[in-house]
C-alpha cells in the first residue's frame, strides 16, 4: 500500500470526521487488503484523532488486517453451524499446517489466515474460503489437499513466468 493509495481514498472524503473512522478504515483496506502503519497514521491525521485511538478501533474489529494478505487468503468459518460441524479442528489443522495464527501472513507471502464469524454458507459447513472461493464440508485432510493444490498452482505460475 502506498501513501498515494490512501491519499486517493482520503481525498474522496475531505470533510470526514471521527464518525467516519470505520468506513474510512474499510475503504482504505479495500485498496490493498490491509492497513499499513502509514495508512493508519494518514487516517488519524486526516480525522485529527490520536493514532493510538485509530489503532485501538482497528484492532477491535477482526475484519481489519495489519499485514499484507498472502497470494492465497484462507478464511476459515467459525460460525455456529460450522462450529457444530467441527470447524475448530479444521482451523487447528490449518494453524498447525501453515504455522500461522489468524491474522498472520506466511513469510513467503503465499498464505494468509483469517478466522471469520460466518461466511453465510451454513448448509455446506464446515466452510473454508480461499480467495473467495468456497470449499464445502472441510475436514483437516481435505483442507490440506486444497492447500497443496494452492502450492502447486503457485509453482506453476512461477514456472510460467
Amino acid at each position, binding site marked *: 500500500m502506498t501513501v498515494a493509495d490512501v491519499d486517493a481514498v482520503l481525498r474522496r472524503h475531505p470533510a470526514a470526521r471521527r464518525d467516519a473512522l470505520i468506513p474510512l478504515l474499510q475503504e482504505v483496506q479495500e485498496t490493498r487488503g490491509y492497513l499499513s502503519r502509514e495508512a493508519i497514521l494518514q487516517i488519524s491525521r486526516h480525522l485529527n484523532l490520536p493514532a493510538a485511538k485509530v489503532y485501538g478501533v482497528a484492532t477491535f*474489529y477482526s475484519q481489519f488486517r495489519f499485514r499484507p494478505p498472502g497470494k492465497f487468503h484462507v478464511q476459515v468459518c467459525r460460525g455456529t453451524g460450522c462450529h457444530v460441524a467441527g470447524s475448530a479442528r479444521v482451523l487447528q489443522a490449518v494453524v498447525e499446517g501453515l504455522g500461522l495464527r489468524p491474522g498472520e501472513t506466511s513469510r513467503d507471502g503465499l498464505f494468509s489466515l483469517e478466522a471469520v464469524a460466518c461466511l453465510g454458507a451454513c448448509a455446506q459447513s464446515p466452510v473454508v474460503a480461499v480467495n473467495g472461493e468456497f470449499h464445502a464440508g472441510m475436514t483437516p485432510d481435505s483442507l490440506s489437499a486444497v492447500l497443496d493444490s494452492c502450492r502447486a498452482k503457485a509453482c506453476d505460475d512461477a514456472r510460467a513466468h
Partner: protein
Amino acid sequence: MVTIEVNKRPLRAREGERLLAALRRAGLSVPTLCDVPALFPSGACRLCVVEVEGRRRLAPSCATPVEEGMKVMTHSPRAVRARQTIVELLLANHPDDCLYCFRNGACQLQRLAEDLGVRQRRYVGAKSDRKIDLAGPSIVRDPAKCILCGKCVRVCEEIQGVAAIDFHGRGSRTCIGTAFDESLNLSSCVGCGQCLMTCPTGALREQSHVKEVVGALDDPAKLVVVQLAPAVSVSLGEAFGLEPGTDVAGPLAAALRELGFARVFDGALGADLAAMEMAAEFVERITRGGPLPMLTSGSPGWVRFVEEFRPDFLENLSTCKSPQQMLGALIKTYFAQQAEVDPARIFSVAVMPCTAKKAEAERPEMGCGGRPDVDAVLTTRELARILRMRGVDLAALSPEPADEPFGERSTAGKLCGAAGGAAEAVMRSVHFLLTGKDLPNLRLQALRAPEGVKEARLRVGGRDFGVAVVSGLGGARRLLDEIRAGWRSLHFVEVATCPGGCVAGGGQPVGASAQAVRARAEALYGLDADEPIRTAHANGAVQRLYQDLLGKPLSARGRELLHTRYAKREVVI
C-alpha cells in the same frame, strides 16, 4: 435538592448528581476501581454497584443519577457478593506477585481483596504473557498487572490531551497500549506520570533510579550530591505518617547526610536562578518585541508536549533550562571547581516530584561531553523507599541546613512547587528589573491556581502585561489554540504539566487525597507568608553566583550553562 433513602436513612442529594458522589459526601464508603471524579463515569469496573429498591439489577452508583425517593442499600449481601466476585475475577489472571510488587501496600486491588475478604481462588485464568515495557525513560508498563479500568487512557486523553495510549483488541484479548503496540519510548508519551498516579494496581510505575543511586552511595570513588525540588519537602512527610503539608526540609537534609550524600543542595535555589534568567529573558522579549507570549520551560512534560504537538510555539518557549538542569549544570562546573573535585567523580542526584524529569536529565544537550549534568533522578516515592530501606526515621532527626554554595533559597523559588508559583516568582523579579523596586505586595493571589487556567493583568512601570497560568496539558493545549486564534492578549504564560503543579506531580506519593495535595501547596504559600527573603533577586546565593560566575542574567556564560534549545520531535501522535 432531592431526598433519597440510603441504608434506611434519609439523605439529601443534589438533583441529577451521581449517586456515588452523594454517597461519598455522606461518608459512605463504596469501592471503585475506575472512577475519576473529574471525568464522565465509565462504569467499567462495576465495584460500586448498589441495590436499588424496585430495580431487578444492581446499579453502578457512579453512573446512576439520584432520583427522588430512591431507596438504596449500599452493602446488601447481594451487592457485597457481587463485589467479591468481581475482585476474584480480576485476580483470576493476575500475576499474584504482591510480595515482589513495587505497589505492595499501596495497591487498590490488593486492598479490596483484603477488605472484601477474598481468601479462596475460585477462578483460575491463564496468566498474561504480555511483556513489560521497560524502554521508556520515565514510565514502565507492566500489562500483566493491568485490570483494564481505563483510567490511564482517560487521564492521558481527556485531562492531558496527549492520548498516547488506548484500548486495543477485544474481549479477553483486550489490552492497553500505544499505537501499533510499540514502546512508550516511541509514542507521544510526555512522561508526566499522571497515568501511574491514577493506576489502581502495579501496571504503571516510574523508571526507577534507586539502584543507580544506592550503588553510587556505596562507591567510595564517587562524591554523591543531591538537589531537592521545591515540592518534595512538603510532600515526603506523608510517606512517614506526618500531616500533609508538613515541611521536612530540615530533617530531610539530616537524613540525606546520614544516607551518605556528601552535599545536600536546595533545588529551590535552581528555581530562583531560573526565575532570574526568565525575568531577564522576558524583559528582553518585551523590549525587542517578541516572540510573545513567552511560555515557561520548567516543566519537562510540557516542553516535550510543545516539541511533539505544537512545534509552532517552540519560539515562544523560554530558552531557560528547568531549575533541575540549571543547578545540575552548575554542580558539575562551579561547585566542582569550588570544591576542587573532578566533575567525573561527582554523581549528581535530583529528587523530584516528577517522572518527566528523568527523561529530561537524559536529553543529550543536558550535559557536557557525553557526561550528563544530572546522573539520576529520584521521585519523591523512590526517596521515601530508600529512606525506609535504610531505616531512617524522618520524625526523629533534628533539622539541618542545606549546603553551600547552593543552600540558600527565597520563598519565590519554593513557590514554584505549586501551579502559578513560577509566574509569581518571575513577575516579582520582572517588576524589580523594570522599576528597581519590589512589587508593593509581593503576593499575586490571582495567579495561585490549583487547577485550570488563571489570568491576571499586571501593571509594571507603566506597562500592562497579561499573565496566565495553566496546569494540565489539556487546558494548556486549549489555551494555545485561543492564543493562536487571537482571543487572548497575553505576554507571559506559565504552564505546569500536571493539574495543580508539581505538588500533584507524577512522582509524588500515590493515593493522596485532593485535600492533601492542597495542603502541600498551602504549605508553600505559608513559607512565603512567613519568611523574609521572598524574591529570587534577594537570594544571597543567587547574588553571589552572578558576582562570581555569571556576571548578569543572560550573560554569555549564563547562556552557555543555563539556557537550552528545542526541536520539533517526530513521534506517533
